[in-house]
């Protein structure tokens, strides 16, 4: 007579079967999750950020703000034109530069520079910034995103590669231009 507390042979096999499937599923989950999160882990490793040249320093007249474009350093074969990125380069004087992301610090729309009034204006929700990137009015809570930059061999280069967003991001300096 089988004891009710005893596990039957078939019951045991079923439990083992569940356990076996669980183990296989866990083992398979590792590569699946790693594949899914690869863009996040690469970002954490800082693999996306590189120094990119925007051109010769002489191409940017002193006291003016000009649009510059660069190719995002991290490229996939199907990216097409989306890796072409724009930014605003302000040459204050000599080797003093400020390089602003094109993306509004509110929700990322492309800001436009108006030299006559010395303002960057955003077409989406009406954000405006002064020539030094500090917030002038509208919904943004901070100034424009600024790329780290350096001048080497007469070239102005910026550290770029990630889409600047209002949350913390490695691509942009944490520096928030002072409010005017």
């Amino acid at each position, binding site marked *: 007579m089988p004891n009710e507390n005893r596990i039957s042979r078939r019951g045991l096999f079923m439990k083992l079967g569940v356990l076996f499937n669980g183990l296989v599923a866990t083992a398979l989950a590792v590569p699946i999750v790693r594949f*899914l*999160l690869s*863009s*996040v882990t*690469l*970002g954490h490793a800082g693999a*996306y950020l590189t120094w990119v040249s925007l051109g010769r320093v002489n191409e940017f007249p002193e006291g003016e703000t000009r649009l510059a*474009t660069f190719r*995002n350093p*991290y*490229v*996939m*074969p*199907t*990216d*097409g*034109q*989306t*890796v*072409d*990125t*724009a930014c605003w380069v302000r040459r204050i004087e000599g080797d003093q530069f400020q390089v602003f992301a*094109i*993306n509004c610090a*509110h*929700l*990322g*729309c*492309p*800001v*436009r520079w*108006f030299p*006559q*009034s*010395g*303002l960057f*204006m955003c*077409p*989406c*929700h*009406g954000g*405006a910034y*002064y020539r030094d990137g500090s917030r*002038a*009015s*509208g*919904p*943004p*809570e901070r100034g424009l995103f600024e790329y780290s930059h350096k001048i080497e061999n007469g070239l102005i280069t910026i550290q770029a*590669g*990630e*889409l600047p*967003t*209002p*949350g*913390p*991001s*490695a*691509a942009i300096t944490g520096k928030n231009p002072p409010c*005017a």
Partner: protein
Amino acid sequence: MRIISQIGEWFDRRLQLAAPIREVAEHPVPRNTASWWYVFGSAALTVFILQLVTGILLALIYVPSASEAWSSLQALNHDVTLGWFIRAMHGWGSNFMVALVLIHMVQVFLFGAYKFPRELTWIVGVFLLLMTLGMAFSGQVLRFDQDAYWGLGIGASIASRVPFAGPAIVKLMLGGPIIAGATLSRFFALHVFVIPGMLIGFVCLHVLMVLKLGINEWPMPGRVVKRATYLSEYHELTKKDGAPFVPYAIWKDMFFAAFILIAVAACALYFGPFGPTGRPDPTIIQTVPKPDYFFLWLYALLSLLPPSMETPALLIGPVVAIVGLLLLPFFSGEGEKSWRRRPIAVLTVMLIAITLGTFTHLAGFTPWSPHMNAWSSDPVPERFLNGTTALQRQGALVFQAKQCRNCHSLGELGGQRGPALDSVAVRLTHDQLIRQVIQGGGNMPAYGKNLSPPETTALVAFLETLHPEGQAPAREAAHDIVLRETGTRP
């Protein structure tokens, strides 16, 4: 005929589906539910099937690659026979589906159909609404143009504000560091495989529950839902005053569904497909991105919220709304069903509808955005310049050249970000005008660094002429006293 029925029997002996299908079709429904108010759910399902068909047709041509998607959409619009019509049907079908799901939800809410025992039907319905909106947003991304590109940027900016996990969520959403090929591919996977698969599953569950629990009876004021007695009361009702669903009620569903399909086709024929707008080239910055119709209210809300409220509203608002909808049947699972006895329910629907309608209307003309070209395209109306001095005319030039016009209108032309200046001189005195121009304030940038003293003098001289005829400009009372006592202007 005999052969047909023999073939039918051959299949049914193996499938054994005829009896259950007949049972479902002929199940009794309360007679008064055979109403035109009960047709929205089936119409939403019909449009969903239309979306599946047109979506598969589009996938025959569309290429989900950032470098080719835009060109493949152009090919659909211009080269492939009737490609434009299928795109238009899919685009308009999407608008109709969102609208029908919302109308269905409002009807279910006002008729108390979410109450016992249909709580889970409502909850599944809430998920169906979220998936429909997810399809709408991901569909807009697949129309890979400038609006899609910058719309993704807005989505990423919102996601980045999540505390701690923000940057990781952005990279997960974009599939890389920027909006590019991987982003489009993952939205393609979401739009074509993941969300539709879930939608099909949830729609089946939703319909299954409608069949198992019965269609909500027409709500009568005073007929109160009680958990203990409802089921037997409903059973009694369908027995006493019921009619078979087919054909008694279904003909209205069929007529309405056909009417909706004709309406989608008519819109597609008349208005044509949506976009694509300009190429998704991020170096083209002369663009004014705008979301599709059903997200315009959000676009307006993001412009009008005070900056400090925005992140909490964006992150907490949707959670509160969704949890509220999910918990609704648990908080009011019993009681009155009739909207005649539920004034707060009616007022809530009206409040939400008016709020969303107002925001959507505002987003149509975006009064919060500067008009980027107003300074060079909207001239100062002649009547503001008649009889002015040289200095005042110089001021009008400064007004245009410094882009004041981008935010301030004159003669109803120009931006609406700031107040219209047609009668600004009545509101602000000479000193106040100078202060406002130099220091800004009240959401206006300070122009002190960008205006020379002569420019400021000229600009203020022009602004002082802006008052209606016969209405004197504002002046400070102290000026008059000082003038009287000293004979000089302070």
